[in-house]
């Protein structure tokens, strides 16, 4: 990714942070505001980051995945369900229940991805349709099961939502978290921290390992890869499934780390915003993460402006309406996808089934 793109990202973030600082300066010091904004930004960017990484694994190997939204939703539901079962039916401690939930969520993402792989690689179904199938399937299954299990007297849990094991606790990283004021930025929950680690790991895998070289080759020119003995089909399957794991972990964020409940369609378009982040980041992990932070910052803006609601001057009254501020990520997505912020180049064989 080029420096211009990073500059645009930095500028947008500065503007958003600046807005909150200007509004809140009479109550808090700018340093405190910025630190708190940064911490929120990194946390809420987590599902976007993981969604974008999911897209990177799939598309770098040549499979378009617009089913990330559905994979995350499915993972959020089944992960949450598993944690509840562990907690209430098998009477396990909350921590074990939550970790089981994360495991099941990751697995769910992988299974949805396997379905996508079978459809798009083996049966060469149009990949946009394959992704749409996943999205519709996830919405349907989770909505249906949610109702069957928790609502009405005939449901599995008899109409009451059982006691949930809560959310994953934040981790205190020695040294980093002890830094005065800024330490708060590193005080994060495990999925958020894993997402950061996965950005670095994915970059390393993609650009410095045999696996990554072959993955990119398969996504750029599968025939060339085939002629040097690389199994194109296998590479694509595995990368799509790894992508599914990423989306699954992203889904776990919603119900096991952010809040401890499930609502139908709670991913609310994050999977698609993640795709936009991936595109804006030019299919690179760091680029996609930076783009995810922009969306995260927009959300942090919305959250923080709530705190300072009374302080917003009448001339900026529009910022009092959290719905208007909440539109920011979606407007950013549209701007990015219309190519207003410069052209990006997708892997050459992205979306094209491989025919021998």
């Amino acid at each position, binding site marked *: 990714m080029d420096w211009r793109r990073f500059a645009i990202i930095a500028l947008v973030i500065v503007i958003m942070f600046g807005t909150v600082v200007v509004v809140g300066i009479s109550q808090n010091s700018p340093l405190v505001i910025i630190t708190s904004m940064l911490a929120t930004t990194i946390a809420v960017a987590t599902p976007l980051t993981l969604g974008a990484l999911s897209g990177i694994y799939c598309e770098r190997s040549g499979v378009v995945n617009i089913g990330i939204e559905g994979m995350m939703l499915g993972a959020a539901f089944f992960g949450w369900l598993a944690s509840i079962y562990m907690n209430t039916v098998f009477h396990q401690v909350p921590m074990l229940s939550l970790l089981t939930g994360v495991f099941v969520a990751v697995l769910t993402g992988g299974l949805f991805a396997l379905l996508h792989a079978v459809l798009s690689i083996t049966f060469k179904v149009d990949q946009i349709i394959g992704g749409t199938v996943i999205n519709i399937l996830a919405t349907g299954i989770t909505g249906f099961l949610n109702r069957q299990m928790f609502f009405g007297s005939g449901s599995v849990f008899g109409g009451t939502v059982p006691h949930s094991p809560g959310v994953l606790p934040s981790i205190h990283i020695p040294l980093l978290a002890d830094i005065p004021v800024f330490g708060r930025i590193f005080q994060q929950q495990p999925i958020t921290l894993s997402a950061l680690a996965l950005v670095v790991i994915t970059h390393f895998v993609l650009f*410095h*390992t*045999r696996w990554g*070289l072959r993955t990119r080759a398969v996504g750029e020119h599968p025939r*060339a890869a085939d*002629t*040097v*003995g690389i199994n194109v089909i296998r590479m694509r399957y595995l990368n799509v499934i790894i992508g599914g794991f990423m989306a699954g972990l992203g889904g776990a964020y919603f119900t096991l780390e952010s809040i401890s409940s499930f609502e139908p369609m709670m991913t609310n378009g994050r999977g698609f915003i993640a795709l936009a982040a991936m595109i804006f980041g030019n299919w690179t992990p760091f680029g996609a993460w930076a783009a995810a932070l922009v969306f995260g910052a927009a959300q942090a803006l919305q959250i923080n402006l709530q705190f300072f609601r009374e302080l917003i001057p009448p001339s900026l009254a529009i910022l009092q309406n959290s719905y208007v501020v909440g539109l920011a990520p979606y407007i950013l997505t549209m701007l990015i996808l219309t190519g207003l912020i410069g052209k990006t180049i997708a892997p050459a064989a992205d979306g094209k089934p491989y025919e021998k």
Partner: protein
Amino acid sequence: MATNDIVLEAKGITKHFPGVLANDHVDFDLHKGEIHALLGENGAGKTTLMNILYGLYLPDSGEIQVDGKPAVIHTPKDSITLGIGMVHQHFMLIPVFTVAENIMLGDEIVRNKIVLDQKAVAKRVRDLSHQYGLEINPETLVSQLPVGVQQRVEIVKALYRNAHILILDEPTAVLTPQEADELFVIMHELTKRGVSIIFITHKLKEVLAVADRITVMRDGKVVGTAKPKETDEAKLASMMVGREVILKVDKDPAKPGNEILKVDGLKVHDIRGLEVVRDVSFHVLAGEVLGIAGVQGNGQTELVEALTGLRSMAGGKMWFSGKDMTGKPPRPITETGMAHIPEDRQRHGLVLGYTVADNMVLNTYYLPPFGVHNMLQPAAIDSNARKLIEDYDVRTPSPYVPVGKLSGGNQQKVIVARELSHPVKLLVANQPTRGLDVGSIEYIHKEIIVMRDRGVAVLLVSAELDEIMALSDRIAVMYRGQIVATVDAAKVTREQLGLWMAGAHPEE
């Protein structure tokens, strides 16, 4: 350097595809250190045989021996292990990867089991390139390399895998004559070092120049093997085609008339927005053939697309038949009398799923007698098709088979028939014989000269220097989007044209 040790032998190779016998009991052998040319028309079965040797297809029957031992080749990996390397006609290189990354792909050198060792690969590549005299820089991106160097990368890629048998599939198709000569030097250099080469081509001159032995294939069978000293172009051509072929185009001197096409200061951008036709001016007279020579990718495609109205012009003017036609869409241009044989017949010349009959009225379907009151007239379309099939000798079982089922030569005849069946003042032919067999080439060439003699202006674009020299009355050479020279075809040599095509400036 050829010896009598046989490094590769294929016996009785047979391969069926649905409806086609692509290889029919083919026998082929390769001696150590020799260049064995495999000659044949498109569809003769050369590529099928090579894909079998390289593990891309499995033969239905037959056996292969490598270095005297029976070999089982199921995948490209098997053949790489056996020391067979292939340089494909369309390079198997990834443009966004570096030379080193392309070379190591599939056979990477790694540290600590997972980390790519770019330095070790670069060193290996440098060593190989010194050893064989193939200069390449491992750190360059492939997309920044000229085609000739990309081909060197492909050769090094095979050598990196310790290939001692090298298959070169139509290696000169994309090269300038000078680059081709360089390649031949490299090939000899390789054979001196014990590499054996299978050289696939349909160009007779090259075969006679570089091969130690020549095997000719036709219709899936080997028709014979010869040594260059014992044969000549005419003999090889008739072996390829199965009948006598007239290689030379007979034509009388041109009788040029009025100016039909005039182009002034034309600029055209490609899809990436780069200026690929830069300030080009020329004219074509009635009754002459203006040939545009040049290596592929020097702006010819975009030039033709701009002239035919398929691509917008970024600057300059165009007059056709005395009228300013700058920026006009294809229909008025066609209606004024331009015929267009496009470069890619399958993508831009035909609708492959439509029938032969429908393809023959693609540019006139809306006009009487084919279209009356917005209704197609099947009877008129039918009789038109039957007449054109007869006139242009299109080999098709009926006018109602999808045109995609026909052979390349017959597809091209459908296009020629359609384009020339309406009143024509200018024929724009872009690579009109690419990928065609000798017989079809002969036919298309004759047709172009017939049109010229009828007073049609012809603009011929071709990367085949022989074709340009055989047909043109004047020749313009295109290099990096500009016309670097325009000369009288009778007063220029092949070598001179080759130099201009490679970027040399003509003396003032």
